């Protein structure tokens, strides 16, 4: 038995991405008299060794042309089938996949992802439309969550993306998004501008008439 094969078994049985830290925690667990001998050899494995073993597994799968691979999603590793096999897997599993997200849902998600924590009004300032309905859909689908309240007047709710968001789009983490730096840098400027306008015109936050484009 090797570290590599143990990790493979863990990834095989897990139904969510496993982080190196989670794998290490599993390996570090104490055993009793019977199991101790088997466990002790892998007790002190470092996260770097786990990562290296996972890389080896990836290479193994490529070399033996397996139908699955190890994807890095939401900070963890997960066995996933290769896209080429979707044709058949869809027939087996696709029955209750949720419907695709609308363009307005994707735009809203993109803004939340870069600017979190962010209030509804702030999202609307970027998109130029009411986002009430879209935001509710995103909350229902677990892609966005309420993270707290802003210190702005009225203590509006703030929103952020979830683990499910990363999983849905197959992202390793938020840094995995394109041009993260650039889109965040605008943030600082925007906050300064927002502070200025908030001081000048608080009436601006009045809700506009119901929008039509908030379908999901």
């Amino acid at each position, binding site marked *: 038995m090797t570290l590599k094969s143990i990790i493979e078994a863990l990834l*095989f049985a897990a139904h969510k991405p496993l982080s190196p830290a989670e794998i290490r925690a599993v390996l570090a667990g104490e055993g009793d008299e019977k199991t101790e001998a088997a466990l002790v050899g892998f007790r002190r494995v470092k996260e770097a060794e786990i990562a290296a073993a996972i890389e080896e597994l990836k290479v193994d799968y490529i070399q033996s042309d397996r139908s699955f691979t190890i994807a890095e999603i939401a900070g963890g590793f997960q066995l*996933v089938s290769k896209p080429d096999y979707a044709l058949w897997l869809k027939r087996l599993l696709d029955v209750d996949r949720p419907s695709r997200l609308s363009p307005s849902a994707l735009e809203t998600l*993109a803004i939340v992802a870069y600017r979190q924590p962010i209030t509804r009004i702030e999202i609307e300032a970027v998109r130029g439309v*009411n986002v009430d309905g879209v935001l509710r859909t995103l909350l229902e689908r677990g892609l966005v969550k309420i993270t707290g309240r802003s210190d702005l007047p009225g203590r509006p709710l703030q929103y952020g993306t979830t683990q499910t968001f990363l999983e849905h*789009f197959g992202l390793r983490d938020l840094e995995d998004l394109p041009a993260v730096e650039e889109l965040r840098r605008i943030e600082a400027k925007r906050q300064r501008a927002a502070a200025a306008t908030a001081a000048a015109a608080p009436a601006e936050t009045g809700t506009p008439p119901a929008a039509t484009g908030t379908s999901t």
Partner: protein
Amino acid sequence: MVENDYKVRLEIFEGPLDLLLYLIKKSEVDIYDIPIEKITKQYLEYLQVMRMLSLDIAGEFLVMAATLMLIKSRMLLPAEERAEQQAQDEDEGEEPRWALIRQLVEYKKFKDVASYLGQRALFQEQVFPRHEASAPEVGSGELKLGDVSLFDLINAFNETLKRVAQRETLREIFEETYSVTDKIEEVLWTLGERGSVKFHELFDHAATRAEIVATFLALLELIRLKQVRARQDAHFGEIVIVKATA
């Protein structure tokens, strides 16, 4: 032909910024150097068409129309007055034209990210992780359980029957008999394997009403014999069956 173009496009605009971006792209001009007069004219034409089609024009579209006209009117001012106005704008924060351009540029970037996310989602649709149902999740110790009344059980049973009634209509009926005794063993075996099981999971593989009834009677019998207990974490919540000793 032009009007048809409008009709098609209108549905897919996500808002006034989206419409503006479209107009800018169509005119093949630099976003930083928008010919305000031309774009404003086209924008207002679109609103006109929306009205003709008696579409509800969202308030945001009208606010943007006002902004565009404000910017246009500023540009019509004589040079010295414009400079005056600019000085005043700087005191107030930002010139409306630049504020709009900045907003457009920013919105454009998020729109690009949105389409990137859309592509990733499409890719993810082709990729399947291990199937969730294969991993037992119950018994993680997170549930706060309270005992369930007979009415709750019957209610849950009724729901299950309804679900199967829908399935059943489309199936061939095979002659199969289920004894309550068999089902008692099946339920006990499942609980022996996993410690607890959700109510509906007991019926997931049942194909007919007869089978569901047998399973339900088995469950009632086991509860009467105090072999298992039915518990529920909230009113009308998911009912969970646990071993009585556990």
